[in-house]
């Protein structure tokens, strides 16, 4: 895979892996246990430029390419899925705003998002609308006076909502979908932290409740009627790429932990790695890692080239790595035996976090439905 990367991409990946080794891996289990990310690590992430990596320099970002974005997600995902979740949602809101925000919105919101002075959250999912986005019930109505909207409704499972300074909220204005920026300090917005998650426990998930929240019409992103067809998909595309690459990082973590253990742990006169059945598990893990690397690279490069097939490539990569991560994490625990079942071992955290990868940014089943339909639809057409 390395041969597909430029020297600059390799250097940034190496720097991020070093960042993770120093600042993330030694602490990730504690964050998971405490169900909270310390402000200091968010600051470090911001100071390293990672939170604004994909945004143009004109807005305070780094202007890095999307392959680099994928590599950063992989490197961070190796250390902490929960911390990578911050980069995921920051990119989702930033890139949707970069594409569909007005000049005024971009000037106001992108610099603090790029520098990590403000964390954003993508408020799409509702208690009754996860995969079925057309079922959103969060409602915008015109406020008396004309230049503002009133927002009512509830959101759930919103990653980073505990930390966010601004939310990109999706709902309906009459029969039209609408996306709107809502600052955290707006009266009528209540944020209730969600504790006790299976995985991604430190990602700051929360429920949001909007009760007659007044937001200026100038905060509308895109136009009414285009929120679900054009605004959300830009963010979700970055979400899928980020999750695919983060899952790849988790898979790498499982692989590296497993080969290290297999090479040193003795059973009688033999190491675990000399056992054929363990070699089989590690062979599948290593092959999935190699395959996932290519799929993620392909997804990132397609998005970088703005290829129409970028959507399909991101779906494919996310579908593959999330499932492979679940399998690898399960096998990594199996290889370690009892010690893999204790919170002192990172593979126990990998095991719980991996399952979340199969659910966020589109469940495995939604991916199968979409990809199956796309693949079958190719029958009889040119270029398949």
């Amino acid at each position, binding site marked *: 895979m390395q041969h597909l990367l430029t020297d600059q991409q390799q250097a940034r990946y190496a720097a991020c892996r070093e960042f993770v080794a120093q600042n993330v891996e030694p602490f990730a289990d504690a964050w998971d246990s405490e169900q909270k990310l310390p402000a200091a690590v968010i600051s470090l992430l911001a100071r390293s430029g990672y939170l604004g990596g994909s945004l143009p320099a004109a807005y305070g970002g780094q202007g890095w390419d999307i392959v680099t974005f994928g590599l950063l997600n992989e490197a961070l995902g190796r250390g902490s899925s929960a911390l990578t979740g911050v980069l995921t949602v920051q990119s989702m809101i930033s890139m949707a705003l970069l594409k*569909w*925000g*007005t000049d005024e919105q971009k000037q106001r919101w992108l610099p603090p998002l790029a520098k990590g002075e403000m964390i954003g959250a993508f408020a799409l999912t509702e208690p009754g609308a996860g995969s079925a*986005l*057309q079922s959103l019930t969060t409602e915008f109505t015109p406020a008396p006076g004309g230049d503002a909207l009133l927002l009512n409704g509830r959101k759930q499972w919103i990653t980073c909502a505990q930390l966010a300074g601004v939310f990109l909220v999706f709902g309906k204005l009459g029969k039209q979908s609408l996306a709107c920026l809502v600052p955290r300090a707006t009266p009528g917005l209540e944020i209730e932290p969600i504790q006790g998650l299976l995985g991604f426990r430190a990602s700051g998930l929360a429920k949001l409740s909007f009760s007659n929240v007044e937001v200026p019409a100038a905060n509308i*992103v*895109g*136009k009414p*009627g*285009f929120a*679900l*067809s*054009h605004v959300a*998909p*830009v963010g979700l*595309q970055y979400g899928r790429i980020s999750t695919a690459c983060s899952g790849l990082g988790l898979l790498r973590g499982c692989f590296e932990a497993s080969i290290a253990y297999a090479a040193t742990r003795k059973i009688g006169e033999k190491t675990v790695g000399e056992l054929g059945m363990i070699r089989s598990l590690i062979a599948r893990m290593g092959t999935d890692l190699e395959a996932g690397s290519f799929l993620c690279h392909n997804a990132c490069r397609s998005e970088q*080239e*703005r*290829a*129409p097939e*970028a*959507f399909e490539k991101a779906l494919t990569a996310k579908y593959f790595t999330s499932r492979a991560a679940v399998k690898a994490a399960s096998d990594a625990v199996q290889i370690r035996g009892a010690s893999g079942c204790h919170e002192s071992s990172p593979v126990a955290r990998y095991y719980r976090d991996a399952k979340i990868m199969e659910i966020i940014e589109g469940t495995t089943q939604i991916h199968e439905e*979409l990809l199956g339909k796309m693949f079958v*639809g190719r029958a009889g*057409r*040119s*270029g398949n």
Partner: protein
Amino acid sequence: MTSVNAAAADAIRETVRHFILSSINIPNLDADDNLFESGIVNSLFAVQLMTFIEKTFAIELGPDDLEIENFKSLNATTAFVLKKNGQQAG
């Protein structure tokens, strides 16, 4: 419409038609078929079509371009692309 613009319009229309027909499972597509009301362009395909138009015709869409009228049919999309490129369809 000048002959140059007419030729450009034809080329744009056929390019977009070919992309849609190679992406969506429909047998044919007339120039005035409504892409949204017919369900040809749904929320999953809208961004793919937008990305294709941006890349193929070297234009960048922004929030002001988000109007159904700009993309409701092959003819509407053709007129929009010409307008963005500083030409008039007619």
